[in-house]
């Protein structure tokens, strides 16, 4: 449902309507081409040799057995990288191929190209690597210890930041303390990594690949291949889900190196087990946190320390810990705060972007704290949140004033006003609906129902001074059956329905029904990443500007005095009268290329203060669970999800993000955990890494709150991450409600729920590392190119 005042469809299949997605038909017929479906008659198959050790020195590599195998066309190692040996999303600290040292189990060491997948796999087996194995650094607290091995030249700290607000030493009537942990989560998109690199006549490469951001890929790839950027042309291949996992490079450089070396197209795709090593994961976290409040339940002070394990390379850890730290006090008015966050290097698998991007870990902590505090104050936990919730005009611990839309109380009230599901008589229940499903050996006799609530928020768009932009081109042409609007942008459809959104925006802005979307590529400037819940906002803004540019051009052709024109059927109108025949005005296509930027932000100062985030989306979730405590099993019965999106361009797609995002947060609450022991992933398969099935998934009711964001196109914010962020703490709160257990670690395992394992504990707050400043530590080392260098967007 939508709140009154939402977008109204002014033109058929325009904004505000649940329009069918343009990629729906090819996806249901099996015709849609994903990265793993790419094909070229002349192609070779690429494969990767990965280190089995989390930390080792490479003494030697012998490729002779592999390279002499008939049908093998290339075997490449670090010395064969044509240009820069390193790449990285924010800092170039990750080797294309390990040369002297491997820092995680699964790190690429060599690559091969062969005539068939079987030959390529055989060649990989024949490569002999002599490793000197070292004791890996696998504990994130130990990484801060001076006697720990230092994994990079600048130490083990990726970034440490400190936000100081008001008087953090202030006293309060009541204090509650907590310690919280979350485990590794995997994005586990069903589509595996895949790409096809085709050598081009000009010495460059055409790369067809599944990625979330083509231009930042190119920025990383070109220096490694020693090619100018215009010789690395990237074309989007079908995605198969991303959730953050396609922000970092996977096959891009390797496939290109093999293609350039062999002169043949090279396809690389990862199987499921390799996929778990071939992309980054959600950071495991440890959070120490202390809340002080007045007797009437007003927050006085929050002190928090978040520590996240970035694994072997930095990926997007600097931005993830930036988010985690700035959100650590929650969507509440907190006059005094000291929030510190640290991301460290270890020999664990690298972690980076995953839906929520640092927010789920701290939301789990601060929402558990809010429940504890409500108990200490003696008021209803929802009322405690209402009392402290942010509103437009509130000041965050970073000093940022929330100037945009912040309908936080409306979000809370919409969530708790829905009726709760009726309890069912266990004896009447189908066994598959019991916790644990048909495998539950009981008859539901010990079931306890619990209800939990959580509130959260997320920034939309890139923060901390990043020049965040999206360029789009709209070309209006005279088609056979009427005008056709062609849309060209590098924006990536990951599955969320961006194609539908972009078509709707163009229809509404131009008044033309027929919209054709070109495949995303690098011909235009960057559209930015499909991440940070930003692409609906950014694409809407760029397309709105481009459509208006097209209308201005038509106005010029029609001889209007620069006034706005509209298209009504086959006529162009201005000032309430037709001024020209559209078909006649389109003898030459009308085209406009425009770049949209959201409002600028600033980096943080030495006290962590700044106008850091462009805007905020708020979300609430209420979870209802049944727990079989004897067996340690949970069934999530129902979720009420409320998402604050500014304006819903396509309500059905918004619901899709709410429902799917909730399932992903639920997964981290009760079943999803990448088991990493001694630096090695022990469950790299869908047999052992448990994803929610349709039997695990609850019913979800979504309420969409629409309070337009000032200054944003159509008032749009975003929705990709909000439900994931609040589902985890809501489900955990519901299990606590059912069991009375503390449950300070996610996911809650059967032993935790059955009471066989107590709450997780650790030592006191970890030492504060000595760092030069708030920026990521590699910044101060110099030499490492930052992603921020992509920010040089230009108007055409």
């Amino acid at each position, binding site marked *: 449902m939508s709140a009154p005042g939402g977008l109204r469809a002014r033109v058929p299949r325009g904004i505000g309507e*649940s329009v*069918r*997605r343009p*990629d*729906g*038909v*090819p*996806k*249901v*017929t*099996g*015709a*849609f*081409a*994903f990265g*793993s*479906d790419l*094909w070229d008659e002349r192609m070779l198959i690429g494969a990767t040799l990965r280190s089995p050790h989390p930390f080792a020195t490479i003494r030697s590599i012998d490729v002779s057995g592999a390279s002499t195998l008939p049908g093998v066309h290339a075997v490449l190692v670090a010395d064969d990288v044509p240009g820069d040996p390193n790449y990285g999303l924010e800092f170039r600290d990750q080797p294309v191929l390990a040369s002297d040292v491997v820092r995680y189990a699964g790190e690429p060491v060599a690559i091969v190209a062969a005539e*068939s997948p*079987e030959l390529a796999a055989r060649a990989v087996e024949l490569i002999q690597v002599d490793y000197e194995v070292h004791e890996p650094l696998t504990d994130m607290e130990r990484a801060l210890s001076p006697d720990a091995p230092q994994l990079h030249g600048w130490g083990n700290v990726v970034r440490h930041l400190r936000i100081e607000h008001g008087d953090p030493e202030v006293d309060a009537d009541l204090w509650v303390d907590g310690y919280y942990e979350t485990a590794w989560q995997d994005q*586990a*998109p*069903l*589509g*595996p990594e895949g790409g096809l690199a085709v050598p081009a006549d000009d010495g460059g490469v055409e790369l067809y690949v599944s990625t979330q951001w083509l231009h930042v890929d190119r920025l990383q790839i070109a220096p490694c291949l020693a090619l100018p950027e215009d010789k690395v042309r990237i074309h989007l291949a*079908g*995605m*198969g*889900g*991303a959730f953050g996992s396609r922000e970092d490079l996977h096959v891009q450089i390797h496939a290109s190196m093999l293609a350039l070396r062999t002169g043949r197209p090279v396809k690389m795709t990862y*199987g*499921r087990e390799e996929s778990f090593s071939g992309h980054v994961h959600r950071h495991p976290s440890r959070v120490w946190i202390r809340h002080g409040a007045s007797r009437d339940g007003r927050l006085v002070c929050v002190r928090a320390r978040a520590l996240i394990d970035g694994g072997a390379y930095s990926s997007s850890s600097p931005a993830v810990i930036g988010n985690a730290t700035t959100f650590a006090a929650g969507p509440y008015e907190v006059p005094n705060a000291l929030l510190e966050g640290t991301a460290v290097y270890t020999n664990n698998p690298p972690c980076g972007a995953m839906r929520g991007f640092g927010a789920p870990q701290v939301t789990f902590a601060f929402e558990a704290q809010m429940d504890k505090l409500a108990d200490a104050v003696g008021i209803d936990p929802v009322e405690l949140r209402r009392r402290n919730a942010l509103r437009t005009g509130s000041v965050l611990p970073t000093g940022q004033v929330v100037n945009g839309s912040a309908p936080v109380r409306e979000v809370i009230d919409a969530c708790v006003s829905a009726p709760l599901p009726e309890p069912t008589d266990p004896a009447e229940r*189908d066994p*598959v*609906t019991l916790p644990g499903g048909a495998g539950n050996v009981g008859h539901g006799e010990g079931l306890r129902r619990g209800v939990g609530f959580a509130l959260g928020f997320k920034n939309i768009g890139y923060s901390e001074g990043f020049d965040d932009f999206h360029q789009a081109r709209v070309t209006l042409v005279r088609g056979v059956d009427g005008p056709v609007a062609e849309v060209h942008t590098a924006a990536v459809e*990951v*599955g*969320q*329905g961006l194609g539908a959104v972009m078509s709707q925006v163009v229809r509404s802005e131009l008044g033309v029904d027929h919209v054709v979307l070109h495949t995303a590529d690098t011909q235009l400037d960057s559209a930015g990443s499909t991440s940070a819940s930003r692409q609906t906002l950014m694409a809407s803004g760029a397309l709105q500007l481009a459509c208006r540019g097209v209308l201005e051009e038509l106005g010029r052709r029609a001889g209007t005095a620069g006034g706005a024109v509209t298209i009504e059927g086959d006529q162009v109108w201005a000032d309430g009268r037709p001024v020209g025949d559209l078909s006649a005005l389109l003898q030459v296509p009308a085209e406009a290329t425009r770049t949209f930027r959201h409002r600028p932000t600033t980096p943080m100062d030495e006290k962590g203060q700044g106008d850091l985030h462009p805007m905020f989306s708020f979300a609430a979730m209420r979870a209802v669970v049944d727990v079989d405590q004897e067996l340690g099993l949970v069934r999530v019965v129902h979720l009420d999800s409320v998402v604050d999106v500014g304006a819903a361009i396509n309500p*059905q*797609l918004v*619901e*899709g993000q709410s*429902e*799917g*995002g*909730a*399932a*992903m947060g639920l997964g981290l609450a009760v079943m999803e955990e990448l088991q990493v022991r001694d630096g090695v992933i022990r469950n790299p*398969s*869908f*047999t052992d890494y448990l*994803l*929610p*099935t*349709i*039997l695990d*998934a609850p*019913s*979800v009711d979504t309420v969409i709150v629409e309070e337009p964001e000032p200054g944003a196109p159509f008032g749009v914010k975003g929705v990709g991450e909000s439900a994931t962020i609040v589902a985890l703490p809501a489900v955990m709160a519901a299990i606590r409600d059912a069991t009375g257990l503390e449950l300070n670690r996610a996911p809650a395992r059967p032993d935790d729920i059955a009471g066989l394992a107590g709450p997780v504990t650790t030592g006191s707050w970890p030492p504060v590392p000595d760092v030069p400043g708030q920026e990521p530590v590699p910044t101060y080392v110099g030499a490492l190119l930052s992603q921020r260098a992509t920010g040089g967007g230009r108007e055409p």
Partner: protein
Amino acid sequence: MSVRALVNGQWREADVWGGASLLTMLRDSLGLLGSKNACEQGECGSCSVWLDGEVVCACLVLAAQAEGREIRTVEDLGGDGLHPVQDAFVAAGAVQCGFCTPGLVVAVTDLLDRDASLDETAVREALAGNLCRCTGYEKILDAVRLAAAAKREGAW
């Protein structure tokens, strides 16, 4: 080795490695890429096809086992337009990234061919072998309801 099978109504012959799966044969030898390779160990259902009328995970069947048998894939549904199950998936918003979709379309078509009157719990149980990472399954259940109603009205 050579395998001959009746694929989507046509006898096709494929030259495959002896250890190849039916999924590999369909995708790499016969160019039928609609069946997807998400887990390749029978956990996700993305490669669901009919083998002699029974839905199987093509990744768990050896290509050699298909010799002389009838295989039907997602590409055979629909004909000129969409099959009602395919249409229901698009209408209900049950498609996001689309990687699980062909397998789910096959599984749902098979389910409704057998019984279009199942309650939600039975539908959930029947589809528990098909993983979807995007939707949270709500809109897939909506699609099943839409398609089941169409089936009961004789749409196919």
